[in-house]
């Protein structure tokens, strides 16, 4: 590999980082707008869950950046699979395994959505399966990666 190729690769990588950062920033702005909307409409009710929200935001931005920056490599699919694993754990934990309770005006409201949670987990398992197939396909196409 000569110096010109190295320079070109570095430049490509830099462009990739800039693009990934840009996309991540756009996602960040969208998440922030959602936070503004939810906190203004739901008020104190939403503030109870704001820590969980920001964990989701941080993880989402991390995976967005990581997936973008690892475009055209096998790591992209590794991150997609990891993201699905994270979502399974996050959804199960943040929803208290499908049972949410909140107190309001002397009443306790409980919503149980275990069947929906099961479908969400199934969706993420399908995403993992898709990521695995994509990774296998990618490896078959470009063994040098």
């Amino acid at each position: 590999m000569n110096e010109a190729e190295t320079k070109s690769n570095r430049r490509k990588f830099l462009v990739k980082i800039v693009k990934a950062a840009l996309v991540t920033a756009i996602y960040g702005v969208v998440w922030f707008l959602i936070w503004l909307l939810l906190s203004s409409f739901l008020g104190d009710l939403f503030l109870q869950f704001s820590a969980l929200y920001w964990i989701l935001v941080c993880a989402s931005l991390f995976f967005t950046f990581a997936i973008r920056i690892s475009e055209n490599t096998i790591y992209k699919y590794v991150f997609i699979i990891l993201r699905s694993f994270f979502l399974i754990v996050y959804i199960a934990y943040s929803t208290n395994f499908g049972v949410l309770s909140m107190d309001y005006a002397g009443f306790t409201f409980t919503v149980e959505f275990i069947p929906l949670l099961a479908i969400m987990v199934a969706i993420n398992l399908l995403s993992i399966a898709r990521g695995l197939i994509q990774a296998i396909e990618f490896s078959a196409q470009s063994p040098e990666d």
Partner: protein
Amino acid sequence: MRHIIKALRLIIAVLWIAILMLPVTVALSLLKIFEAGNNVGIGKPSFDLSNGNFSISIPFYMNNTGFYDLSEVYAYIKVYDGDKFIAESSTNWLDVPAGEMVASNLSILISLEDIFSENRELLTSNKELNVSASLHFRVAYALAFTVTTSSTVQWGAPFSNLTIQHSSYNETHQVFSVSFFNNASFPINGPLRLELLNPSNTTVGLMEQQIGVPSKGLYQGLFEIPVSELTNSGTVRLYFADILIREERWESL
């Protein structure tokens, strides 16, 4: 392999859309039911205490004008004395299909033996009890909602100011007078039994009376108990529907 990936992508997209649409349509369905104001009604509850069971009956109707079936509609009650659990019971489950109206009685039946075997003081002492009442229903067989509220209620003892007094005796009978005030908000109907034991704790006589005491009513009764042996002292036990209300020593005057 590409086809599999495309199919998976499609399935995932469809499932996500379904998952996101379901809560929205469920919310709209519930809004349609409850915004009318007269689609759900709860009547005046009635209480009864008879044959060892305490029952609460709540007339209930629901007109399901929403899109989805409602299932597992039931009420649930838990009673505590401070932090001490006393009793729990739930009504029968109702299903209200979409577009139909269901009218029923939500009945809660609590066995007095279960409650009072460990909380006998509730029979004779007024208390402040914590009652947690819940209403549960499931929409579209997927999302279940439970609304719970807690409140304190004054428990009026059904056998307040209970007195058991030895009145007189002859060679074959011991006579006791029993009186109490029904401070509860329900009538008492059932068998009241007085059992007499000698000092060595052997039953020497018993007598049972059917009583019917209205809420806030006074009961005064005489128990002329035929005895198998004459004794001047011992133990007297008062039962209501096989539930021991009081046990005390007695001596003839």
